[in-house]
């Protein structure tokens, strides 16, 4: 006869409640911490945000004025580094996932990208200085900085591209091949459109990383102070994270620059959010072109 | 229409063709008995081979149909009844051929008086009608028509029951034609069996169309008698 034992049921129920409760508490606490950080920065930084703060260069040993050169410099660095890294990374990802035969080359590339992503960013900075600034003689410049940042973000882009391509059902490829389509045609018309929204996710993550890095641009690009905007990629520029570092640590009057530092941090966060938002729109645009539903 | 339906229609058509052949066999038997046409009687015996060929072919078609389509419900009933009707029809044709053998065995024509007294022609014509009506019932899915068979079968049974008594009378009345009388009696016995086959066919048609197992009805109401 079928039985419904009360006791076992109770144990089962309580253990469920316990573990799900724990998971819930932990995830809520993460969100709380995030909100706390945001509150911390917004509450201290919001007071200095003004039109002048955004549109003027630092003045009076950075205790006054704004952060415009750093803001624009960061945008420059994001733009150029992504312009370099994204196509190369996507193509490398395509090569690894679609073309290279399972074998040593593929494993080598995978190993290298994995290792590359584990290297501390300061090492990238040193490498960038050695290769771009000195050896290739670009000098400390937006170009050298962007190239260094591009190198830094390549592994992430390659990996996300590879994973996005891998997640495209083999059935789509087979369907295309069975109709006589070539591999290139299949990748262009079927595989890439499906994978692209996820590849954009890689781009978003990279932008987040690039915009926040200080170490790689330390020796390759970032200027301590520039009153005007750079006029070519061969010039140095300021950047928000470095500027933040500078005014928070080595200002002449740290107490006076403290609000400026919070304001800068807030702007940096907002920039990252806006760029992410834009990239998300791009992602949705590509997703809407693929009729998955 | 699915191709299963097409197959069913093909099978139906083939059984109808066989049925038509059996009908014509019976018609010819009837004519050869009434008009004493020995050649026609021999033709009936010859044609028996064609009926057998039909039977084998339909048997094989049913086997294939069962194996390939694994039919269910109405389709299954259809194929089962077709299989049985096929056998029944072949038997009827067998009987017709048997009757023809008796006809071709006598040297001169049958004495109309004997035929008349023993109702042989009437009986044969009833049975021919039965087979013909059954074909219509099968083709046009007419259960009402199929049900009319049972009464007519009883009529044949009744004639058959009286046949022995009548045969004795004929043996006395026509002492020179005793052989003929015995042949007529045998023919009547055979016609009675046509009636039985017709009853079976009617049951199969009703089974297929009405999903009613008439055969077992008796069993259910009078269990003791039947066992």
């Amino acid at each position: 006869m079928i039985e419904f034992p009360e006791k076992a049921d109770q144990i089962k129920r309580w253990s469920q409640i316990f573990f799900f409760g724990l998971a819930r508490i932990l995830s809520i606490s993460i969100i709380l911490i995030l909100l706390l950080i945001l509150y911390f920065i917004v509450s201290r930084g919001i007071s200095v945000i003004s039109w002048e703060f955004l549109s003027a260069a630092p003045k009076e040993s950075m205790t006054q004025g704004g952060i415009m050169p750093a803001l624009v410099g960061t945008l420059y660095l994001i733009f150029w580094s992504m312009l370099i890294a994204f196509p190369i990374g996507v193509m490398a990802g395509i090569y690894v996932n679609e073309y290279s035969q399972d074998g040593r080359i593929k494993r080598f590339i995978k190993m290298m990208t994995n290792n590359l992503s584990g290297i501390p960013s300061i090492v990238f900075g040193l490498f960038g200085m050695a290769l771009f600034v000195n050896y290739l003689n670009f000098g400390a410049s937006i170009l050298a900085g962007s190239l260094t940042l591009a190198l830094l973000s390549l592994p992430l882009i390659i990996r996300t591209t590879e994973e996005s391509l891998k997640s495209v059902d083999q059935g789509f490829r087979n369907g295309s091949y069975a109709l006589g389509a070539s591999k290139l045609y299949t990748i262009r018309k079927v595989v890439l459109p499906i994978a692209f929204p996820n590849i954009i996710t890689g781009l978003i993550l990279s932008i987040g990383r690039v915009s926040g890095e200080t170490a790689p641009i330390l020796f390759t690009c970032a200027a301590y102070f520039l009153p005007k905007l750079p006029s070519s990629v061969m010039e140095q520029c300021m950047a928000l994270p470095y500027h933040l570092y500078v005014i928070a640590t080595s200002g002449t009057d740290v107490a006076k620059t403290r609000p400026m530092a919070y304001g800068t941090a807030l702007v940096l966060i907002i920039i990252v959010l806006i760029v992410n938002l834009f990239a998300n729109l791009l992602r949705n645009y590509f997703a809407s072109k693929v009729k998955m539903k | 229409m699915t191709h299963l339906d097409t197959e069913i229609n093909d099978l139906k058509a083939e059984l109808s063709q066989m049925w038509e052949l059996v009908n014509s066999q019976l018609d010819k038997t009837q004519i050869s008995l009434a008009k004493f046409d020995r050649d026609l009687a021999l033709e009936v015996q010859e044609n028996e081979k064609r009926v057998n060929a039909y039977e084998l072919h339909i048997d094989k078609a049913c086997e294939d149909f069962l194996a390939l389509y694994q039919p269910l419900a109405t389709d299954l009933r259809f194929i089962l009844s077709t299989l049985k009707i096929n056998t029944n029809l072949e038997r009827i044709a067998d009987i017709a051929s048997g009757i023809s053998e008796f006809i071709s065995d006598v040297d001169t024509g049958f004495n109309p008086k004997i035929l008349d007294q023993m109702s042989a022609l009437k009986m044969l014509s009833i049975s021919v009608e039965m087979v013909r009506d059954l074909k219509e019932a099968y083709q046009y899915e007419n259960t009402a028509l199929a049900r009319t068979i049972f009464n007519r079968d009883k009529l044949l049974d009744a004639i058959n029951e009286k046949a022995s008594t009548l045969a004795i009378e004929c043996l006395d009345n026509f002492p020179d034609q005793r052989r003929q009388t015995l042949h007529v009696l045998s023919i009547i016995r055979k016609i009675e069996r046509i009636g039985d086959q017709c009853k079976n066919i009617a049951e199969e048609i009703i089974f297929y169309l009405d999903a009613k197992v008439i055969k077992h009805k008796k069993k259910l109401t009078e269990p003791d008698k039947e066992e």
Partner: protein
Amino acid sequence: MNIKIKTQNVHLYYGDFHALKDISVGMYEKAVTALIGPSGCGKSTFLRLFNRMNDLIDNVKITGEITIDQKNIYQIKQSHIDNLRRNVGMVFQKPNPFPKTIFENVAYGLRVNGINQEKVISDQVELSLRQAALWEEVKDKLKKSAFELSGGQQQRLCIARALAVEPSILLMDEPASALDPISTAKIEELIFELKKDYTILIVTHNMQQAGRISDYTGFFLNGELIEFDETKTIFTNPKNNKTESYITGRFG
């Protein structure tokens, strides 16, 4: 009937695994040939020989002769494999429409072929959808995503997609195994219609399906073609004991 596809002493290896063993058989034009057998018996591998889909797998080695219309399809130029695949359509187990509109799915093969006059394409799309008995259901939503269709409709869309490039052979790898009985019946009816114009090879796990739709049946076991005959014969009086055991479910 003519023999359309022929194999002569074909062996296929995946690395060390001997997946097809010495297969010699001829398959008739404009007939449905069913390939049956337990999982892993090589029937799908056998099917993929004819549009060279096995080539996409690493470490495949194929020996023997495989001809379609008397042409050895393994002695053609690499660049002609695309032409081969246009002539030999394929429908897969899981419906795999592209994440595009219904129209673009069917048009895909035409665009692959470099056809770009929209009028030609739209005519061919309609024709193919009609052939696949799908036109009436989708004619008002050609611009909708193929993923809005039901599984059975998706599979018929994939058939239409394959038909659009006008192949002469249709390979079907368990085309109805992921579908409900009603969709399955529709696909089977469709196959029955299509065999008037196409040579169809179908892999199926479903014995009844093989019985219902095929004219010829090949039984595979452990990479060997155990028996090949008219479906009627295979189903009522197979010559080989193994076939008998398999179709009667007494295998083991």
